[in-house]
């Protein structure tokens, strides 16, 4: 089986197949050394694998997160994304200063201040909304110069991680 993956945003190709209770793998990053071999993988507990590669033992934990799989090996965390080629055409964030850009909650919290109104012209980097969680306030800044075409944030409202707060066009 062949998969396009990225480990901490470094793209790679992974081929793997099960062979008599072990996994043969071939890992080819776009910008690094390829690695291939055979690994013994045992699912010890939910999300916890005991991995043996060439006599070396590792404990690997994996959990699905909002932006990929979080993998912990020896206390070090990597974010692994499995790239579905069919999804590549969809638009994502970070498309420069063209078009609409959204402002979303970077953490769960409470909206404590809204510094703009719908229709306002804002400069790039201007403070728009202040979200507070755990006694820490975080000012969300405008991703671009433009006009606030949509404003969802309301003072006092509780917001979830990634919730849409405003749209700048």
């Amino acid at each position, binding site marked *: 089986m062949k998969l396009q993956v990225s480990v901490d945003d470094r793209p*790679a190709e992974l081929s793997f197949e099960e062979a008599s209770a072990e996994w043969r793998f071939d890992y080819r990053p776009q910008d690094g050394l390829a*690695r291939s071999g055979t690994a013994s*993988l045992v699912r010890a507990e939910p999300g916890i694998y005991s991995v043996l590669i060439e006599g070396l033992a590792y404990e690997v934990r994996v959990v699905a*997160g909002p932006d990929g799989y979080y993998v912990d*090996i020896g*206390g070090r965390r990597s974010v692994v994304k499995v790239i579905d080629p069919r999804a590549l055409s969809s638009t994502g964030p970070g498309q420069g200063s063209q078009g609409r850009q959204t402002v979303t909650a970077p953490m769960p*919290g409470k909206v404590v201040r809204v510094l703009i109104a719908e229709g306002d012209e804002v400069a790039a980097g201007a403070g728009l909304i202040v979200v507070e969680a755990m006694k820490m306030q975080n000012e969300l800044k405008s991703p671009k110069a433009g006009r606030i075409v949509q404003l969802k944030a309301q003072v006092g409202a509780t917001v979830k991680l990634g919730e849409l707060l405003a749209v700048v066009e």
Partner: protein
Amino acid sequence: MFRKVLVANRGEIAVRIMRALREMDIRSVAVYSDADRASLHVRMADEAFHLGPAPSSESYLRIDRILEAVRKHGADAIHPGYGFLSENAEFAEACEAEGITFIGPSAATIRQMGSKTAARKMAIAIGAPVVPGTESAVSDPAEARQIARAVGYPVLLKAAAGGGGKGMRRVDSESELEGALRDAASEAERAFANSAVYIEKLVERPRHIEIQVLGDRHGNMVHLGERECSLQRRHQKVMEESPSPLVSARPGMREAMGEAALSIARHAGYYNAGTVEFLVDETGRFYFLEMNTRLQVEHPVTELVTGYDLVQLQIRIAAGEELRLTQKDIAWRGWAIECRIYAEDPHNGFLPSPGMLADVERPTGPGVRLDSGVYAGWEVPMEYDPLLAKLAVWGETREAAIARMKRVLGEYYVSGITTNISFFRQILDDPQFCAGHLHTGFIDEFLRSGAPDPPRSPDYDAMAALVTAVFSKQETQRPVDAGTFSIRSRWLAEGRVRGMR
């Protein structure tokens, strides 16, 4: 001795206090807000009282509600923990008026030491070393110029009512002074409704070292040595140790600092546990900073190297018992380090990370102590401070303690929310940290230098990719899997799987 003690706090410190109460065979009463009904401290308690809505101002800071809880449950003492009402003189007074014991010093002492300028004046009066500067607030720019010239630049402007770095400004030259004075005063006014600002000489690359004192109501008082708390971020302590690498390398320094702390505490008529904070310069000269009239967050490192249970001693002292300790009885053994585990993301500007704790695996084995207020399946509320737990280790030497902390952090696993666990591993690998070269700007410098990413290993990347591929393949074959990326549903699914075994 008390029969029942109300713990006017939440989180790990409420749990810590209840542990002491249980060991002393005293019943505990928890108080909780709407956000904390399912919190560990409520589960640990013998009795519990609902205070009100989640915001602290409507729950943990409501003196009237807490006293109502005391009456309803018939508690005979209150332990305030740290934060919230612990250094609130009105609260201590209200307890006194109610005829209930406040486990801490007197209201008068809290009030005196609560004002930085008043505490500083007292320290000067008894000849304790303080950072050169003004004894009282300064508002006139001309006067400020004169003082700053006398103590020498750089100087530091500080809010008299302050804390947490608010109303604080560094001034390097006279031209910046007037503007900085205005800024500091208005920031202090906004934060503390008190614009008073005073001037101090800035100690470059200072260490923050504090002395634990313990006194009874019969005039006995001892110190339990120092804690080094120089590792801070945004003026909040992150990692502490005892002893201090600096103090332990200088013969006589602990005794000198201890004596200074005791004379300040004695003069303030102090009883119960308290902490005298000092700023220490690179040459080992120390200056009185302030006194904290409560139990400190980082008290476990002192407990680990001295062997005393500070919370139990606090309770005994409050009950009127005599401290059966003299300074000669206090001995220090080995080295202790504590990491404050916060719900924050070190790779994303330390943004808070409240939410559902999917899984928690606690480190165990030799020399480990975990003071935790959380459990798997619990939702970390967004209303309170992000401290989840304090992880402390003991080792025979500082090197052994560092090695042990690295081992223990590797065994500590939290999923569902992000914690700063990985950040500590980076610090523990830092050569400057290992050499004991600490100062309060250490973490900022460490972060500015682009905290080194551990070298990438193609083996690890390959393994991470392979395990993910196998995991996602196996998971999607599981009938209970909802097929979403939601941690919560995944956790519930795992719970179901475990439950079926």
